[in-house]
């Protein structure tokens, strides 16, 4: 690799060749893309080399989500290559998704020749204008002399600090032009970009002091722990072990602390467990590690953990005090901060309040005994929760390394609640933007990075139809992705909200013309499976996992099951709606007039 860098640094080559060389120099092995007029020179370079494998998707949005799945499961930047105009605009959803979930993406878009920019040329659009608010940064490269620097800078900005998507827009004449290539070291020059890693030690000290005095502490961790790398997850586990603090996590942070861990409370928030939300509400010290007080987490802000002191660790200064005022804000990388914290905790021989903590654990055990994830499985209809639990067991039986992606909706929440995540980077879901259609292309991206692993997209019958075309990609590259559809013939979450908020008027949420998924799979050259019997589910799940190629598993589940527990609109953490209390009456009155008055 080093020899290659030396060879190419200072060499004359075309802009298109520079793109490929910059990808190599930044350690890229796979890219996801779709060709078109304005990127043909780059595709020509791709054709004439073997270092980088190009995965041809069927829609540019799919390329974006695949790159997200790839990035999230490897910790590396995901790379997208698309053409100008519609190629670029189709990536916008994936870019915004990556921005909100802090996923490093480098998206290279073709552009019409510089001389035609602004003339409404064929397949022209203002790519940097359109993608400006949905990227961490973007560039229109008007000269081949700037191209190497911009490409290296793109990788640096995407992957450092709070990660995010970037777009490099390269006009076709710049791809053809000859220039001198330079290696990645030149990218260090930009002085206005200073991602913060280290943190203020004084603040860490005060945080540790506060933690040592806590009687009812809770750790609330998020996606920032995952983004910080494997070390952050290890340190988090160590911190929990040392302090014996109970821990909950956001949707994005699942897996950083194992679901089988002793102090695990389950996910928190709108569809979080009773124990997690009650612990958040009643705590006296909250330690937020790499989460951002999202509105799906906090519920009613003015009743959010009302008697607590809050510590917030985040790499992005703008996250601190954005939604919730905190007492101690620590700006820095999670791994760095946790390392310092642990060192201080040990050095100063800090002890948690053993007696108080014992009572707190006992209180939590009572909440856990409430069994907020209980559901009734009968012998005739598969309950969606049961399906996820059986899927988890089947994946355990297989002994394979398992990655789960999801679409967005009820199935996503059930997956988060009932599938136990033991490791970071094995769970990919669209949290911030809530993009239906994310899961399947993301699974394709994960499978590209982990050929031998079991990759399952837990989907709904509505979501899966948004990016179904990527089955063609999976078949083309022999990617044995499993799509496990919880088919309830509705947009389940929309239906649930309509039931709760809109007098059960099911406006456009019934899936009138669901395709025959078995035939659909076969049409693509994949395997289709169908199951509506709880008694055959286990065997069929084993068949799905053991199937060699991609599978669509149409799992028919109870059509009108609701996702509980739930914090209804306008309510606080301690006012959850639990499954056994959710009678039709309770659902009808779950949201009072005050809640309804909220915009």
């Amino acid at each position: 690799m080093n020899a290659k860098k030396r060879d190419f640094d200072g060499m004359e080559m075309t802009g298109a060749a520079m793109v490929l060389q910059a990808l190599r120099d930044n350690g890229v092995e796979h890219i996801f893309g779709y060709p078109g007029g304005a990127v043909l020179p780059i595709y020509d370079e791709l054709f004439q080399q073997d270092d980088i494998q190009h995965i041809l998707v069927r829609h540019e949005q799919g390329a974006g989500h695949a790159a997200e799945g790839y990035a999230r499961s490897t910790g590396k930047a995901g790379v997208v290559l698309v053409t100008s105009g519609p190629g670029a605009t189709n990536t916008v959803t994936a870019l915004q998704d990556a921005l909100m979930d802090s996923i490093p993406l480098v998206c290279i878009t073709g552009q019409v020749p510089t001389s035609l920019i602004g003339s409404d040329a064929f397949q022209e659009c203002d790519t940097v204008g359109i993608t400006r608010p949905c990227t961490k940064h973007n560039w229109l490269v008007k000269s081949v002399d700037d191209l190497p620097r911009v490409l290296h800078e793109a990788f640096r900005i995407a992957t450092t600090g709070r990660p995010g998507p970037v777009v490099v827009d390269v006009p076709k004449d710049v791809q053809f032009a000859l220039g001198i290539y330079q290696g990645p070291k030149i990218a260090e020059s930009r002085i206005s970009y200073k991602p913060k890693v280290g943190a203020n030690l004084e603040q860490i000290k005060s945080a540790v002091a506060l933690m040592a005095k806590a009687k009812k502490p809770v750790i609330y961790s998020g996606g920032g722990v995952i983004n910080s790398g494997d070390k952050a997850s290890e340190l988090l586990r160590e911190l929990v072990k040392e302090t014996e603090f109970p821990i909950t996590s956001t949707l994005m942070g699942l897996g950083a602390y194992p679901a089988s861990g002793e102090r695990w409370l389950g996910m928190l928030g709108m569809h979080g467990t009773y124990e997690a939300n009650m612990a958040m509400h009643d705590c006296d010290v909250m330690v937020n590690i790499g989460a951002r007080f999202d509105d799906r987490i906090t519920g009613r802000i003015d009743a959010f953990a009302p008697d607590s002191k809050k510590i917030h660790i985040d790499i992005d200064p703008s996250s601190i005090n954005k939604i919730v005022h905190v007492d101690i804000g620590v700006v820095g990388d999670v791994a760095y901060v946790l390392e310092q914290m642990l060192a201080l905790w040990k050095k100063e021989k800090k002890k948690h309040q053993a007696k108080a903590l014992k009572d707190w654990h006992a209180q939590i055990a009572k909440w856990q005994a409430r069994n907020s994830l209980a559901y009734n499985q009968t012998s005739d209809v598969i309950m969606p929760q049961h399906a996820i639990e059986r899927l988890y067991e089947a994946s355990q039986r297989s002994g394979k390394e398992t990655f789960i992606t999801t679409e967005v909706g009820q199935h996503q929440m059930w997956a988060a609640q009932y599938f136990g995540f033991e490791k970071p980077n094995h769970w990919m879901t669209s949290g911030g933007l809530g993009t239906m259609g994310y899961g399947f292309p993301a699974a394709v991206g994960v499978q590209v990075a982990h050929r031998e692993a079991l990759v399952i997209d837990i989907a709904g019958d509505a979501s899966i139809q948004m990016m179904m075309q990527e089955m063609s990609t999976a078949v083309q590259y022999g990617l044995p992705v499993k799509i496990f559809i919880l088919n309830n013939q509705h947009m389940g979450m929309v239906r649930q909200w309509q039931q709760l908020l809109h007098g059960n008027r099911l406006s456009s949420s019934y899936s009138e013309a669901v395709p025959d998924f078995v035939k659909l799979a076969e049409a693509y050259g994949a395997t289709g499976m169908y199951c509506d019997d709880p008694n055959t589910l286990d065997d069929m799940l084993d068949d799905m996992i053991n199937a060699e190629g991609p599978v669509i598993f149409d799992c028919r589940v109870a059509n009108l099951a609701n996702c509980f527990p739930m914090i209804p609109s306008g309510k606080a953490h301690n006012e959850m709606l639990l499954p056994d209390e959710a009678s039709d009456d309770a659902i009808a009155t779950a949201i009072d007039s005050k809640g309804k008055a909220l915009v």
Partner: protein
Amino acid sequence: MNEVVAPPASAYFIVKDNGTPENHTLSILVDNEPGVLARVIGLFSGRGYNIESLTVTETEHEKHLSRITIVSNGTHSVLEQMRHQLERIVPVHSVTDLTVVAHAKGYEKPLERELAMLKVVATGEQRLEALRLADAFKAQVIDANVTHFIFEVTGRTSKIEQFIAIMAPLGLVEVCRTGVAAMARGPGIE
């Protein structure tokens, strides 16, 4: 058609910001590159912040640095969020809230100046009156013939506002203003 019913609730929890909105002047040093102003003002419109005044030009040619001066309005928490969000923009070098700096030094406001040009079309007594008042405001005549004057006036926003108000009945037909340029008092560099 289905039955029409009253609109019910939604999924968001809205909390009212009870802080008092204040005008603050932000000084933002940026790389002068294509799109940088669009990034800054896009942030303001995208996140619902106000712009009362905006001034920008390249101030250090060798380093290609521009200074953007924005007068905005918001509560304390909004202004703090604004600063942090601006600092996230890659070509932004620094963001200084000059109003906060002024308060720390015991002043109400930073040094602020604006330049305006006013075109006044008048004859006879009105014309003389306009000229007299312009003199009182230390406004310069930068263009004139027998039917019009163009005045140039510099000063704090309040002075410019006052001058415009006075000229309005005297044949004022057009105004152009630069917006606020601002700097912190004292020898320090902010």
